[in-house]
């Protein structure tokens, strides 16, 4: 009986380990980038891409703050205009996913294609920033970082924000 339980536990462990190793191998690039916080900065001018093949890098709060302090990135708020005007990350540009098509020409005039873009929305569970990132990739922006903690994480960390409600 004890032998049977041991064997069963061994089988369970092997199945979990094999599946987990497969997952790590499959996602090794994502894991590496998440671990190092590295992001690719293109040396050559970006070409207009018609695919969404390039991976959009996730970026953590402290890396975002670092880029904010060094003024090396453009912050793009994917939330609704009304929410943006209440409060947003200081100096962020509004590009709501809902009316991206009408707002994009103005955005493209203002923001060079070589810019590092940090896209955010209402935090984990909000996917507008990622969807917006895909859209911007197809328009030629290649250096896109997704700040998944979004405005809630930035605000709760006490970092600079601005807006009508403040």
């Amino acid at each position, binding site marked *: 009986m004890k032998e049977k339980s041991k064997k*069963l536990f061994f089988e369970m462990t092997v199945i979990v380990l*094999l599946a987990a190793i497969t997952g790590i191998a499959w996602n090794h690039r994502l894991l590496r980038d998440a671990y190092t916080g590295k992001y690719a900065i293109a040396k050559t001018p970006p070409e207009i891409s018609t695919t969404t093949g390039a991976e*959009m890098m996730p970026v953590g709060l402290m890396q975002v703050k670092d880029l904010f302090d060094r003024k090396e990135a453009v912050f793009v708020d994917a939330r609704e205009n009304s929410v943006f005007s209440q409060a947003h990350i200081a100096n962020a540009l509004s590009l709501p996913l809902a009316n991206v098509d009408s707002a994009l020409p103005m955005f493209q005039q203002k923001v060079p294609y070589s810019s590092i873009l940090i896209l955010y929305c209402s935090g*984990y569970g909000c*996917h507008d920033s990622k969807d917006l990132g895909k859209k911007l990739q197809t328009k030629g922006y290649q250096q896109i970082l997704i700040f998944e903690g979004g405005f809630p994480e930035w605000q709760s960390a006490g970092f600079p924000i601005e807006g009508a409600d403040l």
Partner: protein
Amino acid sequence: MRIKTKHYFLLTLRVGLGLVFIYAGILKIRDPIAFAGSVAAYKLLPYFLNYLVAATIPWVEAACGLFLIVGFRVRAVAGITAAMNILFIFLLASTIVRGLDIDCGCFRQGGAKTSAWIAIMRDIVFLATALILFTEQKERRFSYR
């Protein structure tokens, strides 16, 4: 007749649970970044570990689903799915206790929010199914039940 009924009952449970897990796994495998966001929303792990969980758990789910459907190592896989569901139930209960209003991230990432209570009820059904398979399934490398 009774044996035959039990046979079909177990077969239905096994394949049904397998389909649920393979579906849940594949949806998350396709979008690991979104799932990492769902994991992070539970506010339990540091930044990188959210990604590690998002990279591995869906593969365990999908493997369990596949093995249940084909009937490979059913008792072991039922044990894993039961353990995972117990873990999920605890995690979901923790969101209620901590007052977190988040999507459970159980299946499709993003979209309509599933409340923690509904997700817990669903996981209890999956847990019961896994436990039935765990106790009733005979030890065989491949099961045709």
